[in-house]
C-alpha cells in the first residue's frame, strides 16, 4: 500500500453487526446513566444489556451461517475495515462464547435477592470504606457496571478478531480497563476489592507495556503491523531474526499475562478473590476465551511458519503453568482462590493444546485440529467456571459470601442440590469421564500428543491427577465432614442466578455425554484466514 495516500476502509456492516451492537448498547448505557432517573436505571440497564447481547448473539449466528470459503477452503470468512478485522470461523465461534458468558454475567450482575434488595456492587464506589458517606450509600446501586461490562465484551470480541497488532493492542486495552474498574466495586470487603483492582490495573498496565514494545520490535522486523504481512516476512526471513525473537517474546508476555500463565500468574488469585464474584465469573470465562483467541491468531497466523522458535518457550510455560496451578491449589483454604489456581492449571492445559499445532499436510483426514480442541475446551471451561463462581455467591453468612473452606464443611447435608451441582462442576474441571471437562482434556491432550509434545502431555496427565486430589478434597469437605456451628448456609437466589447455574451445569453434562455437536461446530469453524 502506498503510504502517502489514505484509502478509506470499507466497513462490512452486516458482519460487524455483533460488535457494533455491543458497542452501541455500551454507549447508550452511559447516556442512560445521565438521563434516566435513578429509580428506573437498574431495570433499564439490565434490559438494555440483555437485549443488546441477544441481538448480538443472533447477529453472530447469522454471520456464522453467512461466511464464505476463502482460498483452498480450509478457512471461511472475510477481511473488513481495511484488513484490521478478520471475521473468520474461529473468531465467530469465540464471539458466540463471549456473548453467551456475557449473558450469564449480566444475570449474575443483576442478582439482588442475595444481598437483600441491592446488587453485589458498591453503592458509592468513591466513598471511603468505613465512613459516613459509605453508610449513606447503603441502599444505592452502581448501575454503571452494565455499560462497563458491555465495553469489556466489545473488547473481548475484537481481541481475537484483530488482523493487525495495533488493533489487537487497542482491543486488549478496551477489554481490560473496564475490568480493572469492575474489580474494585464489591459491596462487601471494599478494601480487598480495591486492592485487587489496584493490583490488576498496575500489573495489567505493566504487561501492556511489554506487549506494546513487542509490537514495535516486530514492526521493526517486518515493516508492518499486519499479521498476514508479518507472516510473509517471517517466511521470507528477510529482516533481523533477533528482533523478531525478542518481539515475539514480549508479545507473548502481554498475552500470557492475560490468560494467567506462569510466571505471569501472580495477580490471578488476588484478583479473583477480591473482585465481586459475579465479575470474577464473567472475567474468568470471558478474558480467557478472548485472550486465547488472540494467542492462537498471533502465533498460528503471524508466527505460524516460525513455530520452532516459539514452541520450546511455550512448552516450558505450559509445563510450569500446569504444575504450579495444580500444586499450589492444594495449599489453598479459600474457595475463590482455589478456583483461581484451578483456572491457572486450565490455562496450562489449554497451552498444551496450543502446542498441538500441525500443518494440514501432517493431519490425518478428519483428525481433530488443535484449534478445534481448544475451542471445545474453552466452551466446557467457560460453562463450568461461570456456574461454579455463581454457586460461590450463594454460600453466605451475615458478612456476605463465606469463601473460607471451613465454612463450606457439611454443605452437602444442608443443601444437597447446590453442593451436588458444585461437586459435579469440580469433577468436570478435574476431567472425570462423562463430564465436559473430560472430553476437553482428551481433545487437547490428543492433539498435543500427535504433534509430538508427549513430554508436555505426560506432565499434563500428572498434573490432572494432582488436581483431582484437591477437587475431590473439596467434595469430601462438603459431603463427608460434619457441619459445624460456623458453617455457612445457602441463600436462595432469584431466578437470574439459578438460571445461570442450571444452564452451566446442564451444558457441562451435555458436553460430556454428547460432545459431538459442539466438537463438530468447532471443527466447522475451520482455520484462521491467513
Amino acid at each position, binding site marked *: 500500500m502506498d503510504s502517502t495516500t489514505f484509502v478509506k476502509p470499507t466497513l462490512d456492516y452486516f458482519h460487524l453487526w455483533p460488535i457494533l451492537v455491543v458497542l452501541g448498547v455500551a454507549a447508550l448505557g452511559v447516556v442512560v446513566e445521565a438521563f434516566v432517573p435513578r429509580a428506573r436505571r437498574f431495570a433499564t440497564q439490565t434490559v438494555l444489556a440483555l437485549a443488546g447481547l441477544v441481538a448480538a448473539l443472533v447477529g453472530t449466528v447469522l454471520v456464522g451461517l453467512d461466511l464464505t470459503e476463502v482460498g483452498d477452503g480450509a478457512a471461511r470468512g472475510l477481511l473488513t475495515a481495511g484488513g484490521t478485522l478478520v471475521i473468520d470461523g474461529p473468531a465467530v465461534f469465540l464471539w458466540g462464547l463471549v456473548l453467551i458468558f456475557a449473558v450469564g454475567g449480566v444475570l449474575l450482575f443483576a442478582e439482588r435477592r442475595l444481598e437483600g434488595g441491592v446488587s453485589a456492587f458498591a453503592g458509592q464506589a468513591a466513598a471511603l470504606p468505613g465512613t459516613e458517606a459509605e453508610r449513606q450509600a447503603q441502599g444505592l446501586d452502581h448501575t454503571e457496571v452494565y455499560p462497563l461490562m458491555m465495553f469489556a465484551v466489545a473488547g473481548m470480541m475484537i481481541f481475537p478478531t484483530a488482523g493487525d497488532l495495533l488493533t489487537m493492542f487497542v482491543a486488549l486495552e478496551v477489554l481490560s480497563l473496564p475490568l480493572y474498574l469492575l474489580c474494585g466495586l464489591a459491596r462487601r470487603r471494599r478494601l480487598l476489592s480495591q486492592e485487587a483492582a*489496584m*493490583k490488576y490495573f*498496575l*500489573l495489567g498496565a*505493566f*504487561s501492556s507495556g*511489554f506487549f506494546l514494545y513487542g509490537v514495535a520490535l516486530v514492526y521493526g522486523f517486518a515493516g508492518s503491523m499486519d499479521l498476514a504481512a508479518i507472516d510473509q516476512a517471517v517466511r521470507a526471513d528477510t529482516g533481523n531474526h*533477533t528482533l523478531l*525473537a*525478542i518481539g*515475539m*517474546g*514480549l508479545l*507473548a*508476555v502481554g498475552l*500470557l499475562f492475560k490468560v494467567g500463565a*506462569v*510466571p505471569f500468574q*501472580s*495477580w490471578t488469585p*488476588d484478583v479473583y478473590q477480591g473482585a465481586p464474584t459475579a465479575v470474577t465469573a464473567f472475567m474468568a470465562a470471558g478474558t480467557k476465551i478472548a485472550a486465547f483467541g488472540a494467542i492462537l491468531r498471533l502465533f498460528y497466523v503471524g508466527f505460524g511458519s516460525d513455530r520452532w*522458535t*516459539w514452541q*520450546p*518457550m511455550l512448552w516450558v*510455560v505450559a509445563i510450569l503453568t500446569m504444575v*504450579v496451578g495444580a*500444586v*499450589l491449589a*492444594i*495449599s489453598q483454604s479459600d474457595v475463590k482462590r482455589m478456583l483461581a489456581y484451578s483456572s491457572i492449571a486450565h490455562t496450562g492445559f489449554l497451552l498444551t493444546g496450543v502446542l498441538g499445532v500441525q500443518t494440514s499436510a501432517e493431519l*490425518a*483426514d*478428519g*483428525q*481433530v485440529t488443535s484449534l478445534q480442541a481448544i475451542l471445545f475446551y474453552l466452551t466446557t471451561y467457560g460453562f463450568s467456571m461461570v456456574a461454579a463462581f455463581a454457586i460461590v455467591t450463594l454460600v453466605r453468612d451475615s458478612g456476605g459470601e463465606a469463601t473460607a473452606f471451613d465454612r463450606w464443611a457439611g454443605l452437602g447435608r444442608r443443601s*444437597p442440590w447446590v453442593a451436588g451441582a458444585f461437586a459435579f462442576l469440580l469433577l468436570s474441571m478435574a476431567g*472425570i*469421564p*462423562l463430564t465436559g471437562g473430560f472430553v476437553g482434556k482428551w481433545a487437547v*491432550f*490428543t492433539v498435543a*500428543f500427535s504433534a509430538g509434545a508427549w513430554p508436555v*502431555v505426560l506432565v499434563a*496427565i*500428572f498434573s490432572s*491427577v494432582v488436581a*483431582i*486430589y484437591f477437587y*475431590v478434597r473439596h467434595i*469430601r469437605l462438603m459431603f*463427608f*465432614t460434619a457441619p459445624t456451628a460456623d458453617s455457612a448456609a445457602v441463600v436462595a437466589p432469584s431466578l437470574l442466578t439459578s438460571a445461570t447455574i442450571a444452564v452451566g451445569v446442564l451444558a457441562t453434562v451435555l458436553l460430556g*455425554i*454428547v*460432545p*459431538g455437536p459442539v*466438537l*463438530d461446530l468447532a*471443527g466447522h469453524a475451520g482455520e484462521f484466514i491467513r
Partner: protein
Amino acid sequence: MYLMSEGGHTIPVVAPLEAEGAYTLLWLVVALPLLGAAVLLVGGRRTDRWGHLLGTATALASFVLSVVLFVDLLGREESERQVAQRLWEWMEVGGFSVGMDLLYDPLSALFLLLITGVGTLIHVYSIGYMEHDPRRRRFFAYLNLFVAAMLTLVLAENYVVLFLGWEGVGLASYLLIGFWQHKPSAAAAAKKAFVINRVGDIGLSLAIALMFVTFGTTSFTQVSELTSGAGEGTLTALGLLLLLGACGKSAQVPLQAWLLDAMEGPTPVSALIHAATMVTAGVYLVVRSNFVYELAPHAQTVVVVVATVTLLWGAVIGCARDDIKKVLAGSTMSQIGYMMLAAGLGVYGYAFAIFHLITHGFFKANMFLGAGSVMHGMADDVDMRRYGALRKAMPVTFLTFAMGYLAIIGFPLFSGFWSKDKIIETALVESPVAGVCALVGAGVTGFYMTRLMLMTFFTDKRWKEGVHPHESPSVMTVPLIVLAALSVLGGILLLGDWIVGWLAPVVGEAPHHEPPVPVIVLTVLTVAVVAVGVAAAWFLVGRREVARTAPQDVSFAVRAARADLYGDAINDAVVVRPGRRLVTLLLGVDHRGADGLFTGGGSAVAGVGGLLRRVQNGFVRSYALSVLAGALIVVIALMVVNS
C-alpha cells in the same frame, strides 16, 4: 477370525455381531442399578423406608437378566458368541470416534453373573447388617452405583468406556470405604485408596492415549485386529502401562498398600468390592487385553514377576495380622496374585485366571460375610485374639465359613482346589520359578487360614466382658449358605474343561503342553505342601494358648510382616516425602522467590537476618518483579532457540 502369534497358537480377534433379540436389553443390566442409585440419592429421606428393598430389587433384576442372556449365549454357536450394542455415539468427529458401546461375550457373561449374583446376595445380607445404621439408604445407593459402574467396566467395548467404569468403581469404592466418615481412620483409608488408585489410573490413561496415537482407536474390535501390525516396543509399553493400571486397582505390588486400610469400610463392602469384584478388575483388564500381551512377551514376564511377588507378600501379611478382616485382605492380595500369575502366563493361563477369579469370588465373599457375621455377634470387635470357641455360639456362620476355608486352602474336591491347582500346575510347566513360589504360597495360605480358623472358632474363649456372641438373623445367614454351597461346588466349571472351551473365543486355545511329571504327582505335591502349612498352624497356634494381646518381643520377621512388610514406609519415602518437598519448594518460590531473587542483593547487604525475613505475600511490587523475571526468561529462552 484368528491371528497367529509367534508361539504358533492363535489369538482371537474381537468380532462381535450386532445385538438383536434379548441382547438389545443389554443396556438394562447396567441401567437398572444405576436407576436404583439415582432414585435413592435424589429421593433423599422419602425413600428411607423402602430404599434398601429397591436397591436389592434392581440388583436382583440385573441378575435375572444376566442369567437369561447367559442361557441364550450358551445356546449359540461358538462363532456367534460375541454381541455388541451401540448405545450412542459418545465422541465423533471425523476419524476421532468413541462410541458408548457394550460388548457381551463369554468373558463378560461370566463377570455379569458373578457381579450381579454375588452382588445380589451381598445386598440381601446388608439389609440385616446395616439395619441399625441411620444412613442405610445411602449405603444401598452407593452399592447400586458400584454395581452399575462395575458392569460398565466389564461390558465396555472400548477402553474409554472401560475407563468410565474404572473411575466409577473407584468413586464408589472411595465412598464406601469412607462410609463411616465419623471415624478418622475410615476417612484416611478412603483417601489413601483414592490416591494410590490415581497412580494406577495414570497408567491406564497413558495406555489409552498411546493406543489412540498408535491405532487411532480404542475399540477392542479394532485394536485386536491392529496389534499384530504394531511394533513390539509399542506393545510392551502398552502392556506395562495397562499393568500399572491393573496394579492400582488390584492391589498388586507396588500399589498394594491401600487394600488393608480399605477394610475400614462396612464388611459387605469388603466382601463385594474388595474381595469378589472390583479388585479383580486388574485381572480382567489383563485377560481382556490378551491381544496386546500375547505379542508383548516382556510385558508378560513383568506381569508374572509382579504377581509372584504379590502372592507371597499378601500371604506373609496374612500370617501376622490379628485383625480378622486384615488377614482376609492379605489373603485377597495373595489370591489375586495367583490370578495375575495365571494371566501373565498367557494363553495357557487366561482361562484359569478367570476360573480362580470366580471361585475366589465365591469363597472369599463367603468368608468376608462370615467375618461380618462374627463381628456382628462380637460387638464389632475385629481382633481375633478376643475371639475363640465361637463354633458353638454361631454354628451356621462356623459351618459356612469352614466351607470357604476348605476351598481357599485347596482341600481336595472343593472349588479352590481345582482352580488353584490348575494355576500351580500351569506355572510349574511354563515358568518353574514362579511355579515353586506359587506352591510355597499355597502352603503359607494353609498356615494363615488355619490360624484364623483356630483363633476364631476353636481354642479357648477370650471374649471381652459383656460380649455375648449370637447367631446372625437369617437374612444374613441365607446368603452365607448360598455362597458356601457355591464355594464347595464351584469346581464344576472345570468339568470336561468347560471353562477353557467357553473362553476360547475370547482368549484363544493353548497348544497342549505335557507337564514333565504326571499331573497327579503335582496335585499330591500341592496337597502335601498345604498339609504342612495346616499342621504348622496347628502346632504353633492350636496347641498353645493364644495371648489376649499380641506379644511384643517378636523376631524381626514378624515385626516386618505386621508392618505389612513396610509397604507404607516405602511409599512414604519414595512418593510422599519427595512430593511434600516439591509442594513446599513451590510454595516457597511463590511466596518469596521473586522477591528473594531481586531484593536478595539488598537484603544480603543488610545482613543475613534480612534474607530470612518473612516477606509478606501480596505485595504488588513482588508480583511485578515476577512478571519482569518471567519476561526476561521468555525472551532469553527465545534468544537461545534463535541462536
